[in-house]
């Protein structure tokens, strides 16, 4: 039994915050009311004065690296990192080894998660067998086993006809197709955004059109097939303009971007910082502004972390050899709070839409709200805490954070999933 006192509850559906106490019994919220008084020897009381209480977060796009790359991360360590960041539902991408492209691997991931993860892990199946972009995977069998979407993330399905078929086929199983938009003919050999920094450092650039030409292609395919296309990790102004237009057309398209694309620019790469090597690459100030604008007006539906852990030795190499990706669970909320709420004045309830309501809607998952008789899935955030991202504090097995050394505002202090305390006052309890 847990009693959260003096909570500022933000469910995201309304701008008003509800000030109340929350009583959690077993896995459910039993009562939300002012000044709940209870006598129980086993009662845990959490004082949330001055803090926000949100429904816990859902991540539509992350990498847990198991099976195959457990030295980077595994289902357990990735789940703990997610829990530390306030995420209690996460969707792991299929670019494992072997890839999640058949029902047996889906079953394995689900089984392992049940064994070792304190949170909900939902696998995303591969669009194509072996992520090779040649033949459709057994999407129906994988759906039966528990996938919530399909994606060849990390790779683009370059064959437009195959992508069209994937959209049509996925429709039969009512799951979205998550598209990694990258024309590999345009991006081949590229390391960072093609622009000022690539010119200065002499690094081979990836033109922004490598992303937007495929965004345009996939929008047209989704328009024709009327399937649900979800474009992930959008990074450019042009992609946003295309998605905005597609939504006006009535195309069934949704999209996400990641915390690093709304907060950092290509400048981060200066000094050949391999932690700032991500795919798609960090873009320009103009793109950052366009993404923030798109968050404000709802063109961007949700935020994905694209948590992409890599081993330290893999990042401590020559720039061209370093893999792309940054860890992201543990900094996601604070980055959004710092750059959207504190700097751009967004209402804090918007973050609940981006991290909970919309990703769940896209994935056809039951809503997660702080209401009586609902599962007790919530996070308590201190909005006033300033902290520096340090390697030694990262819970993930990997420490390759693009935000290392950066100061962020707000801190996810306490995380509760189905009535269990996973993190309390900043300390992991699972």
């Amino acid at each position: 039994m847990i009693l959260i006192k003096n909570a500022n509850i933000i469910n995201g559906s309304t701008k008003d915050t509800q000030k109340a106490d929350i009583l959690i019994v077993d896995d459910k919220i039993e009562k939300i009311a002012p000044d709940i008084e209870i006598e129980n020897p086993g009662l845990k009381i959490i004082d949330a004065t001055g803090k926000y209480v949100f429904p816990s977060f859902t991540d539509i796009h992350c990498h847990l690296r198991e099976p195959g790359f457990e030295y980077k991360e595994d289902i357990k360590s990735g789940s703990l990192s997610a829990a530390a960041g306030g995420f209690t539902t996460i969707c792991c991408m299929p670019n494992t080894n072997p890839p999640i492209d058949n029902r047996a691997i889906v079953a394995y991931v689900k089984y392992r998660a049940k064994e070792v993860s304190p949170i909900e892990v939902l696998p995303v199946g591969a669009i194509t067998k072996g992520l090779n972009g040649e033949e459709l995977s057994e999407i129906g069998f994988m759906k039966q086993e528990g996938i919530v979407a399909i994606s060849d993330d990390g790779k683009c399905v370059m064959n437009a006809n195959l992508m069209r078929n994937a959209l049509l086929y996925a429709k039969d199983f009512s799951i979205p197709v998550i598209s990694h938009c990258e024309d590999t003919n345009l991006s081949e050999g590229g390391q960072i955004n093609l622009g000022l920094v690539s010119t200065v450092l002499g690094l081979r650039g990836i033109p922004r059109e490598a992303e937007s030409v495929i965004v345009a292609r996939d929008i047209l395919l989704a328009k024709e097939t009327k399937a649900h296309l979800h474009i992930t990790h959008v990074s450019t102004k042009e992609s946003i303009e295309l998605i905005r237009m597609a939504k006006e057309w009535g195309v069934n398209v949704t999209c996400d971007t990641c915390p690093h694309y709304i907060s950092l620019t290509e400048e981060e790469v200066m000094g050949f910082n391999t932690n700032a090597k991500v795919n798609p690459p960090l873009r320009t100030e103009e793109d950052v502004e366009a993404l923030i604008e798109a968050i404000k007006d709802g063109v961007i539906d949700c935020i994905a972390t694209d948590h992409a852990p890599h081993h330290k030795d893999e990042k401590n190499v020559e720039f061209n050899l370093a893999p792309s990706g940054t860890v992201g669970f543990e900094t996601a909320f604070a980055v959004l709070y710092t750059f959207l709420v504190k700097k751009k004045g967004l209402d804090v309830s918007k973050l609940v839409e981006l991290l909970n309501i919309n990703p769940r809607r896209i994935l056809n998952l039951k809503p997660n709200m702080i209401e009586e008789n609902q599962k007790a899935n919530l996070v308590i955030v201190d909005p006033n805490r300033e902290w520096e991202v340090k390697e030694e504090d990262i819970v993930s097995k990997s420490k390759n954070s693009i935000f290392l050394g950066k100061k962020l505002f707000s801190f996810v202090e306490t995380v509760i999933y189905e009535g269990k305390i996973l993190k309390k006052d900043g300390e992991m309890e699972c």
Partner: protein
Amino acid sequence: MKHLLGLRDLSKEEILKILNLAKDMKLILKSETKKTPHLQGYSVVTLFYENSTRTRTSFELAAKFMSANTTSISVATSSVQKGESLLDTVRTLEALKTDVLIVRHSVSGAAHFIAKNCSFSVINAGDGMNEHPTQALLDMFTIRERLGKLEKLKIAIIGDILHSRVARSNIWGLKKFENEVTVYGPRTLLPPFIDKFVNVASSLEEAVCNKDVVIDLRIQLERQKRGLISSKYEYYEFFGLNEDISKFISKDTLIMHPGPVNRGVEISSEIMNLPNCTIEEQVTNGIAVRMAVLYLCTRKEVN
């Protein structure tokens, strides 16, 4: 000066210090014995991941003229072939008591990466498309020696700007001396936003006309296969320093080239034979500049 990784982060004063010292070093080169004790007891290693004749030999001779113990690691016969990482190679060199490492690598930033992970001095002998600082320094030395000054000149850089570390180092270095730098080349070989740093000419004639210096760059013929240029014949016709364009180049204009030259692709043999063409002189000056850099990198009191 602990390392020399590039000219972008070097101040004008530091560049002048190197060039002034190189002037003294050139006197040593002119002497019969060509031997000084400046680097006696120091261990200088060259590690080249790309082929090179002039830069590598130039560095080795520079170190030897100054009495250093030199070793050159040929990547083709080293542990790199057994899959050793650059980081582990660096750790090995550290354990072998290297004082100065001269490195050439195909990856931009490789010299910076080594410098971050070692305690010895690192001299960048060319990293990917990023910088080739000693080449730019020897170009600047040659310009100053020939024209008597290094400031407020009109300088054109012609050719593959996109992939050229020589172009980048020259741009960063020459811009610090208020020179007016203009570039020209096929649009497929011009990097984006280059006009934020230098002028971009609209024709080869415009690029070379009324210039004090024309630096012509080497074209790598594999660019042809990557679809960046159509053929070396067409390149020579439209972007090469050929007979047609030579009439637009003043006889007082210095014509420079970092070498090795593709004759009849980026420059004609006739132009190479002109008295204002400094290609061989640049090679000699390269030793003097590298002697100066080696000297400064090993001076602990300066560090």
